[in-house]
């Protein structure tokens, strides 16, 4: 079966180690494989490694490789290739190196066995290997591409436009941003293990969402990612089409600068209204999350009171509880805090990053207006939005955060710890609490799971009582496709087409 597939963006490069980015990985996953992979449910399953375990030395993981696997070019996959690929992914120009930061060494044991030694014990290492693709050593070296493409420096190498993986599909042709054609790999090792019903993939990025939906509705494509929420119903209702959904590992929320004594984005002189927790609570209370869910998101979101989705370690139902909107009570709290007449503030918001991001912000403008907070909305492309947060140039902003390792620590490191060299790079709240910082740091080395979870709980309690963030909802992923396609939504938004089946 030929599958015509469209999504908003295109892969940025074909070099599998040059970009750590969703759409780029999605395409790479069809062509290349790692030692491990996540299946359509997000579970880790064997790929080029058949099994793996920590050795006696808690710092060393041993991987047994699959035998008889051939690259598209015919070369056999061996431990040399695995060592070469992992080392390549750790090179300075690699975008994957942070994921392997804990790796001290990679060693070939025999032709089909590889050891990975980490700096300290790292029970989560396999989580970081699912996007770590294997390339052929001989082919890569022969084509002078030992160093991954130097994206930052505008570099280019052979792998940027040529592929030679072990995956289920092989490249036929590619015009970036326009069209990519793949065909089934006749010698794929997974025959019998995966459905492999797709024989050809025609991949067209369609950025404009209306056009993308139109393409699906008119039958020009079979499968699209990122269906606009308003068109879900129509697409679902249309004869021959269906939409499948799954919660995504990403929470949308607003951040507030509570740390500075005065802020520039407001109209209050000499004071920072956001520094008062009553104001933050009042604002939290003014947000009508259900209205946003019903109207803006058309039900395609899970309103939440905490900035992590449920699959993440540390999440509890109590944390996720959110107040019912109560304008009167919120106003009272504002008055309490000395802002009976409200204040004005600028809200920075992306308009091309999250599902209906700008519309959510607009809705918030109206809701906050009802408790006297006059919000000036500044919606702009992500390229301009994110630097504001990183450079601490915004006092009130929208952000969405995914948690690939499925653990709260990841969130704390980036969003709760005060900003230092290593931590808190995305903490736009300027929140700084030495005690909490110490707790966050301790999580990395705490091996006792219970103690660790207690610490996590403690941190979350503080975050919630301080109302560091105004959480809105967890996003829901949805894919639109022909009725005869059987495919579940993958929580990382990664369709692996070798799993796709058709019913006729």
């Amino acid at each position: 079966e030929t599958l015509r597939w469209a999504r908003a963006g295109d892969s940025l490069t074909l070099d599998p180690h040059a970009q750590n980015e969703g759409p780029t990985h999605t395409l790479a996953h069809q062509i290349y494989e790692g030692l491990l992979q996540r299946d359509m449910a997000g579970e880790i399953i064997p790929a080029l490694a058949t099994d793996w375990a920590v050795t006696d030395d808690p710092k060393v993981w041993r991987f047994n490789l699959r035998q008889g696997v051939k690259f598209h070019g015919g070369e056999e996959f061996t431990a040399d290739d695995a060592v070469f690929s992992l080392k390549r992914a750790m090179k300075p120009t690699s975008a994957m190196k942070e994921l392997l930061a804990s790796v001290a060494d990679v060693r070939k044991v025999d032709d089909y066995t590889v050891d990975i030694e980490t700096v300290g014990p790292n029970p989560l290492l396999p989580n970081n290997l699912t996007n770590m693709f294997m390339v052929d050593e001989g082919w890569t070296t022969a084509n002078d591409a030992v160093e991954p493409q130097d994206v930052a420096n505008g570099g280019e190498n052979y792998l940027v436009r040529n592929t030679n993986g072990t995956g289920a599909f092989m490249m036929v042709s590619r015009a970036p941003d326009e069209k990519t054609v793949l065909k089934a790999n006749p010698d794929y090792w997974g025959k019998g293990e995966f459905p492999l019903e797709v024989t050809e993939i025609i991949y067209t990025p369609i950025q404009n969402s209306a056009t993308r939906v139109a393409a699906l509705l008119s039958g020009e494509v079979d499968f699209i990612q990122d269906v606009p929420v308003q068109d879900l119903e129509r697409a679902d209702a249309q004869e021959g089409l269906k939409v499948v959904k799954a919660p995504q590992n990403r929470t949308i929320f607003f951040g507030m600068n509570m740390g500075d004594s005065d802020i520039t984005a407001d109209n209050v002189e000499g004071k920072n209204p956001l520094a008062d927790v009553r104001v933050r609570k009042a604002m939290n209370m003014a947000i009508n999350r259900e209205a946003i869910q019903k109207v803006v998101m058309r039900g395609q979101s899970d309103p939440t009171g905490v900035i992590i989705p449920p699959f993440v370690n540390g999440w509890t139902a109590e944390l996720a509880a959110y107040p019912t909107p109560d304008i009167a009570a919120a106003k009272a709290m504002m008055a309490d805090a000395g802002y009976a007449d409200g204040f004005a503030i600028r809200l920075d918001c992306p308009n091309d990053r999250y599902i209906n991001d700008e519309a959510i912000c607009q809705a918030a403008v109206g809701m906050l207006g009802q408790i006297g907070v006059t919000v000036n909305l500044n919606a702009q492309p992500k390229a301009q939005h994110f630097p504001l947060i990183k450079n601490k140039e915004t006092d009130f902003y929208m952000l969405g955060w995914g948690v690939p390792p499925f653990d709260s620590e990841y969130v704390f490191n980036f969003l709760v710890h005060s900003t230092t060299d290593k931590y808190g790079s995305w903490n736009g709240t300027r929140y700084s609490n030495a005690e909490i910082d110490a707790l966050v740091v301790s999580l990395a080395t705490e091996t006792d799971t219970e103690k660790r979870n207690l610490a996590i709980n403690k941190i979350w309690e503080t975050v919630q009582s301080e109302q560091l963030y105004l959480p809105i909802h967890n996003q829901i992923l949805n894919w639109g496709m022909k009725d005869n396609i059987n495919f579940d939504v993958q929580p990382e938004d990664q369709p692996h087409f070798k799993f796709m089946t058709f019913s006729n």
Partner: protein
Amino acid sequence: MASFNQRLQTALDSDLAFAFKRSPVAMTATTIFALLAIAAVLAPLIAPYNPFDPATLNLMNGFTPPMEANEFTGQTFTLGTDDQGRDVLSTIMYGLRISLFVGVAAVLFAAVLGVTLGLLAGYFGGWVDTVVMRIADVQITFPSILIAMLIFGVAKGLTPVEARDEMAIWVLILSIGLSEWVYYARTVRGATMVEKSKEYVAAARLANRSPLAIMFGHVLPNVMGPVLVLGTIGLALAIIAEATLSYLGVGAPPTQPSLGTLIRVGQDYLFNGEWWILFFPAVTLLALALSVNLLGDWLRDALNPRLR
């Protein structure tokens, strides 16, 4: 003072008025335009809601179809509501205000700038002419969209974020005006060179009139005909340009939507059956631009002595 009635009478008897009374197209277009303009000007008085005040919006009213009660709030809206629960009718009226204001102001700006430069270039010739026309050449190299994006980029970099919403309108006016002045300048320059060589200008020089007095007292009134036509057509162009820019997201701010912003928003809901969000603003925009264009077209013919 008896002359007012007399002048009115003269005006009504004039060729233009005569042609007007004879042209059903011109009359219809004027009526439509007048209705739209009145709706725009009086919007704060006659619009059922104030869509620009976010605090009055109820998000739950979002996506209410025309003339149907909202499923959560039970409210009914003549033309339905948009994604933010704004009454589409009121929003169109307020959006018209923006579109018309931007259009008229941009045309005035372009006309004043273009006419002045055109007069100077045409009257003085020489290096004044060269400089003005070379600037015009460069200007025309950039189509209006690019000019607008450019000005937006610059304005965005230069203005504080708080001021942007207010600035947006002025930036629109500036960018559309800047992309249109060339047409006025070229036309007026040409007409001025023709007028300048006419003997009445020599007569005025003999009366020791200053060049400025001649330019504005003598030449200007005689080149206003084409300027009027350009202005009318330019108004339609400016309205469309504003809509396009707002559609591309560099125009009116989303909290103060113009017709283009409304269409941009509405386009997302075209395929799922919520047609009214796109349809009514689109029809309004079309009606506005069309009526202005029809008027301009008619005016061009009516002012052309050879077609009379």
